[in-house]
């Protein structure tokens, strides 16, 4: 994307006022987004993102600048802007970046940017028409096929030059069921770090449409969820959002380094029941949250966060690692070149345990079976989290009973980890876009079916 000689000169300029580290992050990203409503393609967004973010460190200070001007003069101007925030002398050593190739474990068979609109639209239609035809009460179906071709280059003053090409594909289908003045919705939003082959090898468009429609119809005929403290079984797949919100964010150096996490200073301590082993793994081939290298050029790795209840590791980026006195873990991520990168999750899951699914359900006398979760959020300072339940059923006397709508789950991360008392065997993941200070990034969440002995269920 940028010639080595220019990278060397821009890095040197950025270091010219006493920084001890400088980095260039360049990106060229093609985004395509085809939307369909009412069975017809109504909008296509098609954009090229192109820009550079420059970072320098001086001890525990971080200075960043971004620009869309990729000419050498534009880059030098941005380097001057970061340098102007410091007033020291240059270290004086010349910088020579050397290319390093970390490899790519995510093969892409059908590169989306090489495929005509028509073929993508056919996939989207199959999903949307399947949803619409599923039931008379399906009033509307909105579908989107997104593909991203994200090319990044990272060069730093330690001589690293690394590049990666991240291709992602996602289909989002939202079905609305309508009856007697009421709407209810159903979603299906699978995505992979893959090309369009994901609709052959992972999930077919028909399955996407069916899933969304079925959920909307189920919820249309459901009553409201009762409120109060209950035992809750949370299904696998996107159910893993509970760990992502309740615990994952609080293990990011973003909050740990500044002393703003409830898990500060807890390494080696037991923070969860023995049933809980949790891992953040950015190396899983073709998974939605996977990366070959992170956005500061560190190869992705598998980090065991919690092992049998004991806190083993945080997720750390280079800058926050300085304050913590710890090594980076390959978790530094940013939405694009305009954001200041920080530690973020990749694919974060609770590992399979030994409890049988039927035993988990039959153990619940009165409670909730959360079949599919919606999104959520957390305040890492207090650990207070919340998330929505998209599809839930009451459980009575060990049996899954009628569906209920409008449920949410709230609690505190440190408490819920102590309340996960059964963990099933069948791990599955779900895809989400995770929002935090460095923007919106793709992450996988996942778990087997788990049981939480007691949690506040928000309902009516």
């Amino acid at each position: 994307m940028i010639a080595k000689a220019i990278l060397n000169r821009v890095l040197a300029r950025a270091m010219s006022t006493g920084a001890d580290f400088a980095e260039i992050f360049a990106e060229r990203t093609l985004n395509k987004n085809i939307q369909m409503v009412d069975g017809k393609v109504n909008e296509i967004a098609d954009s090229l993102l192109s820009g550079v973010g420059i970072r320098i460190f001086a001890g525990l200070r971080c200075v960043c600048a971004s620009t869309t001007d990729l000419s050498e003069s534009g880059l030098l101007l941005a380097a001057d802007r970061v340098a102007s925030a410091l007033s020291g002398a240059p270290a004086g050593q010349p910088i020579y970046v050397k290319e390093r190739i970390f490899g790519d474990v995510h093969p892409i068979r059908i590169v989306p940017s090489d495929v005509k609109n028509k073929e993508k639209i056919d996939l989207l239609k199959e999903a949307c028409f399947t949803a619409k035809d599923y039931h008379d009460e399906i009033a509307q179906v909105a579908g989107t096929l997104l593909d991203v071709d994200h090319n990044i280059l990272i060069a730093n003053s330690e001589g690293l030059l690394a590049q990666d090409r991240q291709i992602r594909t996602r289909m989002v289908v939202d079905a609305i069921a309508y009856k007697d003045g009421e709407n209810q919705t159903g979603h299906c939003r699978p995505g992979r770090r893959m090309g369009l082959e994901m609709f052959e090898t992972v999930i077919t468009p028909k399955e996407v449409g069916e899933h969304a429609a079925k959920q909307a119809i189920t919820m249309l005929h459901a009553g409201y969820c009762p409120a109060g403290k209950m035992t809750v079984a949370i299904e696998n797949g996107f159910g893993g959002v509970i760990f992502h919100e309740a615990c994952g964010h609080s293990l990011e150096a973003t909050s740990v380094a500044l002393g703003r996490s409830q898990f500060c200073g807890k390494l080696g301590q037991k923070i969860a029941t023995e049933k809980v082993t949790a891992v953040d793994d950015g190396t899983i081939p073709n998974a939605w949250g996977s990366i070959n290298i992170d956005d500061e050029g560190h190869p992705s790795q598998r980090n065991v966060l919690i092992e049998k209840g004991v806190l083993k590791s945080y997720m750390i980026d280079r800058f926050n690692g300085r304050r913590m006195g710890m090594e980076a873990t390959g978790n530094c991520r940013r939405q694009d070149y305009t954001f200041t990168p920080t530690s973020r999750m990749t694919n974060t899951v609770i590992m399979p345990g030994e409890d049988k699914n039927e035993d988990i359900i039959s153990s619940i006398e009165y409670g909730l079976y959360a079949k599919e979760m919606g999104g959520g959020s957390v305040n890492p300072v207090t650990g207070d989290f919340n998330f929505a339940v998209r599809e839930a059923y009451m459980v009575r006397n060990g049996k899954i009973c009628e569906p209920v709508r409008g449920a949410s789950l709230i609690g505190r991360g440190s408490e819920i980890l102590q309340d996960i008392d059964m963990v099933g065997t069948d791990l599955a993941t779900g895809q989400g876009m995770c929002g935090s200070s460095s923007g919106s990034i793709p992450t996988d969440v996942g778990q087997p079916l788990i049981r939480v002995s007691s949690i506040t269920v928000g309902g009516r």
Partner: protein
Amino acid sequence: MEYQEFKSAVLKAAREAGLEEYELYYKNSSEMAVSVYREEVNQFTTATGGGACFRCIVGGKMGYAATECFDEEQAASLVERAMDNAASIETEDEVVIHPAGDEYQKVSRMPGEIPSADVMTSVAMDCQKRLYAEDARVIDGTQSRTLAEKGMVCLANSKGLDLSQEYGVSAVAAISIVQEPGEEEKYMGYKMSLGEVSEVDLADLAKKGVEDALSVMNPGKVNSGKYKIVFSGKMMGAMLSTFASVFSAEAVQQGISLLKGKEQTMVASDIVTIVDDPFYPDFSVQMPFDAEGVATSTKEVIAKGVLNTLLYNLKTAKKAGKSSTGNAAKESYDAPIAIQPYAFYVKPGEKSREEVFAEVGEGIYVTELNGMHAGADPKTGDFSLSSAGFLISGGQKQGPVKGFTVAGNFFQMLKDIELIGSDLEFHAPESFSVYGAPCVVVKELSVAGK
């Protein structure tokens, strides 16, 4: 190349491709942000950038393409991609490029220049010192931030329009963390003051920021049940922000909003008036034209409970046989035209917050709602949200409570608003939209707690 040169190249490429109706939208911005941790600057960020989005009508269909890379190759590629995308569009809605000729109102407030790095830094440092000085229980993790953004929107099309407007926003934010010595629990407070960075009243900001954190220490729990709920102005504003899309004519026409067929009917209690004002005097994100170049205007969307109008852009207005309300918007420069309000707020009533509490007697004052993006669904109106706030008892605000949810339905809630305070508060602008409200009293909502 610079934008002006790129613009000429794109418009030339469009003409050469034989296009008759086309438009180029451009948005740029410069930003500076400083963050102070302990008593040192730990983050200093500057950004400059801009992107252009081209759209054109081919065979009655609108196609889009956008770029941040301004060169000859992209100028040609934009036109080619937009034409190719237009050919794949299937909706039969009539689309138009807006001609010149509207009369545009003048904005009353222009954005200031971005302050120098020294000013941005010293204000953030000063704020941080004041936060620590405010109370001995303020601990590390406390952060002060200054931020300033200034930018411009330009729109040029084949029908003679050539518009531009500057916008800007700047603010100082205080995030205070407090802890009782020897205890593990931490509490957070957040206050932001919009306005010229050097003119923000830091003493007041620091005081309110720390008070915000101290006031929620040692919260109690609430029992599950039905309660009278007072939403703070900020939280009612957050509700409006979350549910704003129900007022979009596009959502209504697609059957996604339950306000379908409700224009000119009662959709809220008769004390509720909701205003959309592109020229709200407090903000320097005022917009005289929308993302299609249509002149904007101030209107009551809900007037005394009656849904006066939805928010329209050109396409949805044409479909409904109405005029655009000037609410065409782009989520970002590269997004297709959608619909958004400007300063969108509940018109304040007469009573102060204390008078409102006195009238309520018993209930919960909700000052924090979390997880709006997941726990509230504009398509159904349902919400079930993790909340925090204060008990109201004996007509007065009591101690803090948290760890409960408030659940209901937005459409029902609008009808159940019993009283509206006078304390209008706004959130920070999100692009050209700013949401606000005074505190409002809702007759009854479900609470899940103990």
